[in-house]
Structures are given as structure tokens and as C-alpha cells.
């Protein structure tokens, strides 16, 4: 037996949530592309005919700019003002599996050496409804990093498309179960997840190569076309580096990127990563070697956003394929 819901009822449900004051974020058309955005009108909800939104869903747990606290100078004193934070319940609806799989990673990051209260509060109030993929493009490689088009990692609920505009509702957590309780119908169909992309490379080969070849011409060669922007990191569900600045009496946390030359620039003027090659190497090393060594999982979910959004057509995939090729060359 399985639980199912029609797309009409799903929209009605989304409208109910919005009505109740829940912040719903979902894929929609905007900016000439598909983006995860706060949903105002359930009719705008996209449930098919897109591969992956141009942004990632991380911004609803880890916003691009967030005030940590504010300060006021009063006479001789500096007074701290706590950031209000938010307890607004949130449903991330129609999240792709490769975005959802990044949430357990962010949970580690924001609770590793200290517990990030602002993140955790938002996280506690968030339910993640994943929409399994029915198609992939040339940039997708979830299957190369142990995930797939119907992966449940990070999901509270998984929706798997059936024919005739219905979805099988698979509750993964209690939170997910209660969100859909009484909203589904029982049926005896079982949805078949679509086939994922063919594996493109072996992460172990990448890990071995990058750990052993800190100095290798491949980094510089591949970085030639890289313009050093933040498009890859900012649209990546797992990239989480931030910068902390003081602006207008507030201490603010903003997204950063290891591909900016400023990222490692010392106050002295020295830059330990002086060229784009060393920055590209850092991105691969962190994702496929440093982070796995520390936390036991790859810091990449294969969503392909970094390639999709790269003005120079790079992102990690072409480099990963080239690395694997290099690793398998006879010595």
C-alpha cells in the first residue's frame, strides 16, 4: 500500500500552509529561469519540467546575508543587541534530492565546533519535502557521489511522480508524516523512480589523486578559464563559507567563496593562494578529500549547479572527469 496525492491537492495543501503563516519556498519561474523562492501563490509552484533551479535551497536555512547581532555605542559603553532570529515554521517544497542531501552536511557544519543558534532554530522549524527527479541533464552526477534521483537523504517527505499528475508520498521522518497526515489517499500503486545519470567518475580516484598531487599542472590548466567569481559556490547546496562584516552597526554574516582572490588575502598583502589554480584545487580538495577525511562524507551532492551556472562552463565536473582520467593513466 502507498500514500498518494494529486498535484491539485498538493497545491491546495501549499495554499493552506501559506494561509497558516508558514513560509513555503518552492521552485518557480523568475529571472528567466527556475529558482527556489518564497511561494506567494500556490499556482506558481513548479512540479515538473525543470531539472534543477539555478539557485540552491540552502538559502532558506543559511541565508546569503544574516545579522548575527547588532551593537550600539552608548557613551563609553558598547551595547549588544541580540538578533531576533525567527521561529516562523517553514516548508521547503519540491526540493531536489541533491539539495536535500546537503542539509545533513550543513547540520554538521553549523554544529561542529559550536552550535549555531540562528541556524538551528531555523532548521528545527523547517520541514523538507523532496521532489524526486524524472529527468537529468548533462551536468547532473548525483549517482557518482552515492545519491540518486529518488534519494531520501535529508528529506522529511519524498514525493515521487506517478503518471496522471499524482505523486507517491513517502514519509521519511515523523515530521514529514505529520505534515501530510490525513492529506493523502491510499492506493496500491508504487512509483518507480526515474533512472539517474550514468556515473561520471569515481570519487575515490579523485580523493587519491588530489591528496597526492598538490602540485600538478592540471590545476592551473583547468583554472585558466575560471574567472574567479562566486557563481559556483553561491549556487552550490553544500558550499557554506561565509564572511563576517560590520555594517551599519550590525555584525553580518554573508556568503563568501574560495574562488575570490580576496578569500585568502592576508592583511600583510600576502596571498597563500595566489592564483586561480590553487583556488580550484582548494575547492576540489575540500569537497573530495579534506571534508570526507573529517566528516566521512563527500562535500558534493552532484547537483551540477556549479557547472550549470558557471559563466565559463567549468564547475567541478569537467575537472573531476579530467582528474579521474589522469589518475588512471599508466604511471
Amino acid at each position, binding site marked *: 500500500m502507498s500514500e498518494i496525492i494529486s498535484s491539485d491537492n498538493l497545491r491546495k495543501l501549499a495554499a493552506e500552509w501559506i494561509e497558516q503563516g508558514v513560509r513555503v519556498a518552492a521552485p518557480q519561474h523568475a*529571472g528567466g529561469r527556475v529558482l527556489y523562492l518564497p511561494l*506567494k501563490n500556490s499556482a506558481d509552484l513548479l512540479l515538473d519540467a525543470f531539472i534543477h533551479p539555478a539557485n540552491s535551497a540552502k538559502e532558506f536555512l543559511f541565508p546569503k546575508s544574516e545579522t548575527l547581532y547588532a551593537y550600539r555605542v552608548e557613551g563609553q559603553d558598547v551595547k549588544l543587541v541580540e538578533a531576533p532570529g525567527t521561529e516562523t515554521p517553514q516548508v521547503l517544497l519540491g526540493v531536489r534530492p541533491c539539495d536535500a542531501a546537503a542539509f545533513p552536511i550543513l547540520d554538521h557544519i553549523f554544529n561542529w565546533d559550536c552550535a549555531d543558534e540562528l541556524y538551528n532554530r531555523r532548521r528545527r522549524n523547517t520541514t523538507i519535502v523532496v521532489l524526486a527527479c524524472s529527468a537529468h541533464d548533462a551536468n547532473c552526477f548525483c549517482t557518482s557521489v552515492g545519491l540518486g534521483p529518488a534519494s531520501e537523504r535529508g528529506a522529511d517527505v519524498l514525493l515521487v511522480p506517478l503518471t496522471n499528475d499524482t505523486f507517491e508520498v513517502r514519509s521519511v521522518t515523523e515530521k514529514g508524516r505529520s505534515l501530510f497526515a490525513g492529506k493523502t489517499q491510499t492506493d496500491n500503486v508504487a512509483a518507480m523512480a526515474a533512472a539517474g545519470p550514468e556515473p561520471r567518475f569515481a570519487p575515490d580516484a579523485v580523493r587519491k589523486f588530489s591528496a597526492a598531487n598538490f602540485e600538478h599542472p592540471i590545476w592551473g590548466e583547468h583554472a585558466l578559464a575560471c574567472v574567479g567569481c*562566486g*557563481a559556483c559556490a*553561491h549556487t552550490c547546496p553544500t558550499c557554506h563559507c561565509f*564572511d563576517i562584516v560590520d555594517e551599519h552597526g550590525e555584525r553580518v554574516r554573508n556568503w563568501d567563496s574560495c574562488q575570490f582572490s580576496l578569500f585568502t588575502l592576508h592583511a600583510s598583502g600576502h596571498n597563500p593562494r595566489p592564483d586561480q589554480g590553487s583556488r580550484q584545487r582548494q575547492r576540489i580538495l575540500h569537497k573530495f578529500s579534506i571534508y570526507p577525511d573529517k566528516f566521512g562524507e563527500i562535500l558534493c551532492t552532484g547537483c551540477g549547479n556549479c557547472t550549470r551556472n558557471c*559563466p*565559463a562552463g*567549468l564547475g567541478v565536473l569537467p575537472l573531476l572527469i579530467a582528474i579521474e582520467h589522469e589518475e588512471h593513466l599508466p604511471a
Partner: protein
Amino acid sequence: MSEVFEPRIVAFVCNWCTYLGADLAGTTRLEYPANVRIVRLPCSGRIDFNLLIKAFEIGADAVLVSGCHPGDCHYNTGNYHARRRWMLFRPLLEVLGFDMRRLHFAWISAAESRKFQQTVKQVVEETRQLGPYQYPAPPTDSYGAGREPHKNHFDAAAAQQRAREMLEAKEVDVVIGYGSSGPVFIRRPEDVDQITCEETGLNLAAYLGRKEVRAMGRAAILTKPMDAGALVVLERESQIESGAVKTIPIGEPGKGDFSDLDALLALPPAERMAWWAGEFARCTRCYACRQVCPMCYCERCIADKNRPVVIDTSPTPVGNFAWHVTRAFHLAGRCVGCGACNHACPVGIDLRLLNMAVHRAVAEQFDFNVGADPKAESPIGCWAPADHEEFIR
């Protein structure tokens, strides 16, 4: 409503004329409203547009900019330079929908204490009518239309052929072209087939300044119709030698089309401002727009200066507004219209519209063609006594 609105006016004035005029107003007991905070700079030519934006950011309701009358500048031509700059800056603010009634320009000499008094009085009264300046909150129900991602196809065979000839004849050491996944740097004639028939909107001139690319030697780049203009600007700005970079033209020239800009300008200013607020709300400050721009070759961009911070680095409504004003205005008389910024923006902000507004002002007001003659002086680096405007009091 308990408190009466008292507008806050920031006046950026030059040291030699307007400041002395204000001083004279004080010493001769000409009363003027206390709403104005005066910031003195050496010369009106030193009043950077970022200061104006900053003033609004931190609470000004209106800004007054004032210097010596034309011909009276104590550094000879500072005010002429300033005038040019404001002539191009205003069209940018206009397309952004900024309320132009909050930005005032004047020439006030050291003797014109009464003009200073009258100007301040007027500005305060007008601003009082307008109410407090507020940056519009991003709309909650629309996120803009943006631009479709772009891909063009062209005939690769001819480009490959030309690249092969150039490399074989040792005319150049490297040909930069479009490959199957991004730009390719071809150094050997036998590799020219890596040049494919798809371009994704990059202007390859952006790579010319890179240390690694310079080290390769003499370069040729594939240029779409608007791209080659970048080489003219780079030569004008002493970034490359005349004729040092060869081009392999691809694609058919389109027609200059300003209809999107005109459609935007047809909206009332407040609606325009709100529309941009929605667009900028998506900006994450990834700086892809800057990084792909051949004209944004600064070793350290003003947006990256943090001692002190000139432009808020936070992707907030205020920070993003300041960033987009800066980027567009730094390209005044320099943008060649290749559209690389537009195609690079991952969230589809139509940045081109800002550049087009300034571009049109440069062409119409100064009859300047950005990509034509490398010897022609940059319109923002020079001035003419005949520069004509009607907005300076």
C-alpha cells in the same frame, strides 16, 4: 503622529567657493535651516558618486552637491570634470527610478551667501514635502522577469581555419576560443578543433589581462560583433598595445535595440525603483558580472576595499543598490555592450539595462562612440566648456 518630519540634508561642497559662501552666510547672519550637514571636499571634482549613495544609505533625505561656477575652479577644471560626471550619473539614477527630486546640484561662489541660503531653504522645503527617503522594500509578490540564459551557435569551421593559419604562421602564440565546456586556449595548430560552435555570452577579451594568459605570448581572440570594441577601450586605457591582440570575428552583427530600456523608462520612477529592488533582491554578490567584464580589470575592485569599506559587501537591498550603481557607473563611456555581465549573472538580472542607459547618454550628450577610436579621449576623462545641462542651479 507626534514628531514633525525634519528632513536631513547632506551638502557636499568644495572648499574654495561653496564652503566659503556658506561661511559668509553664517558670518553675515543670513539664517538658513539647521537641517543641512555640510561635508567639505577640496573640489567638486573630488565629490565621488559613492558619497552621494552613502549619504542616502545612512539617513539623508536629500543631497546637495555644490562647487565653484564654471571658469572659477581653483584647480582650473575640477568643476568641468564634475559636471560631465553628473551629466552621465543622472541618467543612471533615472533608469534605476531614483527620486531625482532628492538630488540637487548648484554652483555657488564664495560671494553668493544669499544663493547658498536660498538654495538650502528650497531644498529643505522641497524635501519636507517629499517626506523621508526610503529605499523600497523588495516586492513580496514578484521577482522580476529577468533574462533567459543565452547560447548562440556559429560556424566553427571558418574560425578553426583562421586560428590554424595564425598559429602556423606564428602570427600569434595562443588563440582563445569557445570550447565544448567553456573557453579554450589553443597553442598548437593541431588543437584548433577544440574550438566548437557554441558560445555562452563570454567576451574573451576578459582573459587578456590574466597573468597566465599574458605569459603565453601574443594572443588572438574570437570576437562576437560587439566584443572587439573592448580591445579599443583596453588600448585607450593603456592596457594593451595597439594591434597587439588579433581578432577572429564570428557571428552576424545585430541591430542596436533600446526598446527594453525605453519600456522600462516609460514606467513611473517609483515603479522602476521597486522593479529593480525585486531584481536586486536575487543578487548574491557573486561578482560574476564583474569578473567576466573585460573593462573590470582593476586589480582590486572598489567593492573589495575594506579599509575602509566603500560599498557594503552585504547582499542586502542597500548594499546591492550601491554595488549596481557603482558597477554601472564605472563602465560609463567604457561598456562596449557585449552583454557578458548579463549572460554571467546566475540569477538572471538584466544588468544590460543599466549599462545601456549610460551608454545612450554618452552617445547622445557627447557624441562618443565607445568602441570606435582608441585615440579618442574617454568622455569621462575629459570635458568641454560647451557641455550643456539644465539641472545645475
